[in-house]
């Protein structure tokens, strides 16, 4: 968008006089970070609050998943391939970084296909890819399985913790623990699933939402648009990211997800088990499912007693309200995942919040 126009819209947002106080939730972790990074959060007019939602995949992944990954890696002496975001996340008793320091073979990859290549290049070793992510990432993880099958690679498998975002948003609305007037809806999740799957927010719960992108201009227009919907009492889901998001999303990607995964229930940190919010590998591809291929019994799950990541992910508190924030818990020595991931609310507050 034209620079001058963005400046003008920024002024509009800054000077906007709200008719009443509004509380909006940004669902996506990338939005959480970008609102701070771009400075758009500082443009919020008086009376507008932004609540961080459960949209950082690393943050909502429960300890049990990492416990299982570490147990499998120890028991079977295999190669763990993971996105970099997961490496410092604390599990109940350890972390991938600590395990790597003690000799576990952990490789950071950029793409799930890099993990397939790793398996191809190491025919004598098993490679397990830690499949963490939302709808944006799920098709690429499905393609990795299809690619392994096509190339006849048998030493590749995937440990799935893939999650679907609309059920988590619905759970938060139903829990009614925090007042949310409207939603800023994830742009790249919507690139895959489309605008339509979000209609329930407006149709069933009478709240508006705006899908938007990640540039400063997208954030400003997304927020202005949501304020307008709220003040005009328009209960609808508006797509301000039409450059990328279609009504029905990327239908090819949807078919690829359906080919490899079944929808299942999934456990979200802080929220609990939500039906229909996860993806599991179909029976047909079970040879690529690490959970089936490598039976393991992880130790009992342990949570850090003071960590309030769970409350944070439900929008109940902001990071500075956690007693550990910026004291015991820092990016260098994170107690909870919300401080580790670059998209975690604690990490964003730590870097950009004015103390």
């Amino acid at each position: 968008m034209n620079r001058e126009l963005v400046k003008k819209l920024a002024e509009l947002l800054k000077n906007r006089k709200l008719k009443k106080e509004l509380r909006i939730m940004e669902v996506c972790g990338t939005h959480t970070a970008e609102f701070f990074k771009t400075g758009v959060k500082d443009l919020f007019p008086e009376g507008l609050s932004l609540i961080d939602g459960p949209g950082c995949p690393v943050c909502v992944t429960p300890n049990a998943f990492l416990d299982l990954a570490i147990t499998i890696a120890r028991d079977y002496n295999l190669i763990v391939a993971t996105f970099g975001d997961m490496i410092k996340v604390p599990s109940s008793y350890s972390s991938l970084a600590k395990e790597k320091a003690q000799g576990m073979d952990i490789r950071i990859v950029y793409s799930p296909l890099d993990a397939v290549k790793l398996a191809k290049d190491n025919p004598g070793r098993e490679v397990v890819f830690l499949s963490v992510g939302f709808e944006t990432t799920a098709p690429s993880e499905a393609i990795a399985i299809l690619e392994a099958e096509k190339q006849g690679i048998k030493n590749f498998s995937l440990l799935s913790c893939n999650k679907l975002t609309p059920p988590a948003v619905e759970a938060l609305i139903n829990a009614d623990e925090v007042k949310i007037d409207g939603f800023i809806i994830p742009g790249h999740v919507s690139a895959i699933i489309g605008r339509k799957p979000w209609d329930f927010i407006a149709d069933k719960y009478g709240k508006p939402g705006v899908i938007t992108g990640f540039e400063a201009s997208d954030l400003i227009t997304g927020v202005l648009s949501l304020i307008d919907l709220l003040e005009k009492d328009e209960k609808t889901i508006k797509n301000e990211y039409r450059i990328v998001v279609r009504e029905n999303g990327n239908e090819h990607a949807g078919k690829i997800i359906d080919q490899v995964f079944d929808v299942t229930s999934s456990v979200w940190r802080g929220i609990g088990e939500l039906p229909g919010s996860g993806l599991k590998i179909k029976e047909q591809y079970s040879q690529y499912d690490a959970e089936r291929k490598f039976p393991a019994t992880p130790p009992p799950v342990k949570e850090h007693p003071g960590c309030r990541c769970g409350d944070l992910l439900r929008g109940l508190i902001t990071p500075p309200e956690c007693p550990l924030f910026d004291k015991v818990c820092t990016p260098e020595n994170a107690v909870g995942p919300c401080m580790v991931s670059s998209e975690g609310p604690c990490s964003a507050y730590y870097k950009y919040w004015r103390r």
Partner: protein
Amino acid sequence: MCLAIPMTITRFEGNYAIATANGVETTVNYAMMPDLKENDKVLVHAGFVIEKLDEEQAREIEETWKEYYEVMEKEEKKNMPV
């Protein structure tokens, strides 16, 4: 984790495409967007093309926000104390 980068498709090599952004060239998988052609603007996430960018929509959105600003500016002037 849902970060994606806008890139331009420059050529095809076997089952992969080559995409560039700011002088950086990378190989991308386009199984999710099979009808690509050279010079298409795309969004790349974790080495995969996840969508094509609709430049017509970009122009339309910009136009709409330009009009929005003009309307709001007029409103503001109208409401200013004389």
